[in-house]
């Protein structure tokens, strides 16, 4: 069947089998390998992408056909104008990653969280990420990173510097 999916702002039209899982569509049909496959059985959260702007979904547990006519944001869509997204910068600053395998899923789950709750407290961040597994960091720095990103996103824009 033919599907049209907007991924990171670009419309893609592709022929897929209905049984094609979204994560393989993104990685293999579109070459967007930023979204990882971990458990492949909906348990680890590394494959999370954002559907229609604010819903975190495990792309290993959704058919590409279900995304027909919808909008997907993957980790590749976070950078704007060559500048890291505040979440990405915060993960860098706070050492929120080591091997980086879980990171795309952590970022996208956090991205959806901040859309719903711009000011989550620490328990809310831990709760939102409870289904995302990380084998390296011990989570502490991931939580700190999301806190930093939330604080920055909410901070008033800097006053333009008079010249």
């Amino acid at each position, binding site marked *: 069947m033919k599907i049209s999916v907007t991924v990171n702002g670009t419309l893609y039209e592709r022929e897929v089998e209905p049984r094609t899982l979204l994560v393989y569509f993104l990685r293999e049909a579109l070459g967007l390998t930023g979204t990882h496959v971990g458990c492949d059985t*909906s*348990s680890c959260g590394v494959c999370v992408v954002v559907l229609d702007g604010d819903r975190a979904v495990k792309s290993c547990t*959704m*058919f590409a056909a279900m995304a027909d006519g919808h909008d997907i944001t993957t980790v590749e869509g976070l950078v704007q104008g060559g500048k890291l997204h505040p979440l990405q910068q915060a993960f860098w600053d706070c050492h929120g990653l080591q091997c980086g395998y879980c990171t795309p899923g952590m970022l996208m789950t956090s991205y959806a969280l901040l859309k719903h709750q711009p000011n989550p407290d620490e328990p809310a961040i831990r709760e939102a990420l409870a*289904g995302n597994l990380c084998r390296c960091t011990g989570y502490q720095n991931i939580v700190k990173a999301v806190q930093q990103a939330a604080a920055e996103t909410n901070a008033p824009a800097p006053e333009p510097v008079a010249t």
Partner: protein
Amino acid sequence: MFPAPFDYHRPGSVDEALALLTRYGADARVLAGGQSLIPAMRFRLARPAVLVDINALSELSYLREVDGMLAIGAMTRDAALETSALITSKYPLLADTSALVADPVVRQSGTVVGSLCHNDPAGDWGVTALAGRAQIVIRGATGTRTVTIDDFLVDSFTTAVGDGELALEVRFPTPPPRTAGSYQKIERKVGDFATAAAAARITLDANGAIADAGIAIGAAGPHALRVRDAELLLNGAKPTKELIRAAGDAARKLADPAADNRGSVEYKKDMAGVLVARGLIAALARLGVEGLR
């Protein structure tokens, strides 16, 4: 681990969905959140020839009170309950449950009705639906019928929804005054199915006696089980430590769990009793009745 091939349909209305389900009968399956069906298809435990995706039926996504009942539409996702002020303020039993199903990302897709239709022996919603006296509205080619949750849960992974039918909504009676509930679950980690689970719902009368009780357990049989013996003990009685212990014992007796890597039969039976007691204590505490621990 790819599912077997199937034909995919995404109807734009309930009538269209029913026409497809009628046309394909036993070959078709409804696809809601996909959080149980897609894993089952990937493991080839299910290989439907046709999927009828109801995600476009936004008219089935609602939480509303009608005629003394809370209606939860077939496309209402668990996450919608977690963030609903109506649910957190008036339906604590449902609020408890929605926060403990699966993990937060799964809850952004999975639906309450889909979970009931899946009828996993260790699923959470069946337990709460029994204690909360829920009803399910089912529509088929010949009309709409309403089924009590007791009749709906037929066997593991089997419900009263027949071929060609669609579950439209689940309804929970709005709790009368002086009513509270609690959902209790032991899980190995977030996102795991229950090792043991229990739901308790209590209404107190003006004298502080129990006017009406609903008690159910999960992961303790082919599907969620209503603990009628506990309800009979509780109805009309004053809440005491002894009464709560007896209600827990009724659950222990009824529980018929299977041993697996989550625990032995003995452990799970015991936890069914412990969780019923904890649920009662928590529900009564919400009504201001303390000191029963």
